[in-house]
């Protein structure tokens, strides 16, 4: 939309229906911006992937904080570097370890969650390309309401946490 056209000319030259459509569109623009701003009201730090050889599944870890004023629901993640990305939680009971699928995670305003070793992690399956220590891998976090945020993860060695 070309907003540089003087308002007088813009409205004067349009018929009634077009004016309404244009008015709605103009009104929608600032709201669209508000919605997009809400998309990024999370802060993600310390995003890293621990590299294992071959095509073994990898774990992605990060810290996420809801910096907005409303609840944010993390529903999953995807990346062009992997065929499948899943949210998992490692659970230990009676000396046995197992993994549980996590469908979604709710973050209240101000709340932080830590994806960390032996807890929540992204399970990154089937690499689409070779990865090496030091690589930067973009992963898109997906939130309720079709909102997303891309995060760059750093690939670290097998012997790291």
């Amino acid at each position, binding site marked *: 939309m070309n907003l540089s056209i003087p308002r007088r000319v813009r409205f004067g030259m349009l018929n009634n229906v077009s004016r309404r459509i244009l008015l709605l569109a103009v009104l929608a623009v600032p709201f669209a911006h508000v919605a997009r701003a809400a998309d990024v009201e999370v802060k993600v730090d310390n995003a890293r992937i*621990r*590299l*294992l*050889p*071959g095509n*073994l*599944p*990898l*774990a992605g870890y990060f810290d996420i904080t809801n910096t907005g004023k409303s609840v944010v629901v993390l529903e999953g993640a995807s990346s062009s570097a992997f065929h*499948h990305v899943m949210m*998992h939680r*490692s659970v*230990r009971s009676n*000396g*046995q*370890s*197992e*993994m549980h699928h996590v469908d979604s995670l709710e973050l209240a305003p101000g709340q932080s969650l830590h994806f960390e*070793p*032996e807890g929540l*992690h992204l*399970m*990154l*399956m089937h690499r689409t390309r070779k990865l090496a220590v030091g690589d930067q891998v973009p992963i898109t976090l997906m939130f309720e309401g079709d909102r997303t945020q891309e995060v760059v993860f750093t690939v670290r*060695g*097998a*012997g*790291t*946490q």
Partner: protein
Amino acid sequence: MVRKIATLLAITVACALGVTGCSKDPMKWDLVNITGIMEPLAFSLTDDHGQAVTQDDYRGKVALLYFGYTHCPDVCPTTLARLSQALSTMGSDADKVRVLFVTVDPKRDTADLLKTYTDSFGPQFVGLRTDDLDRLKAFNKRYRVTFGYGKPDADGNYEVSHSSAVFIFDQQGKARLIAEATDDVPAIAHDLKQLVSGN
């Protein structure tokens, strides 16, 4: 005074009876002391070079036994990374230690995959396997642990539940300590240093 003598006497009797955690062992351990509680190291498996091996091949080394699988993205590499970090603080003494990674998923964990996997954690890491699930179960049971397989997904991937403990044996193959997920690198390093110096 009488009470003190009585206490000393009680401790002496307890030690004579082989009660663990008392003064026969003057060392302080950060990890759980299992001396005299768990079975000594004994197995007959294949290593990551395809060679048949037993506990005798690791006599003279402090052996760290862990049951895991390579398709485990979180817990297994986290445990091995902690052990690797502990070993890196030990200088040349690290060579007196072997980490025996026994796969509980021999179907996917070939000798070759085990080799590349364990190599990525350090030269002290060895992959061990057997296709004989009964033997694998018996070996787990010897240390009072178990494993199990989840339902395969559409791509045939499945998850494996397994023990989270690291069983630690001295140079003579005697069970001495257990490291759990809650034990940090300094605790593991501290106890390994004591064990390699013959305590």
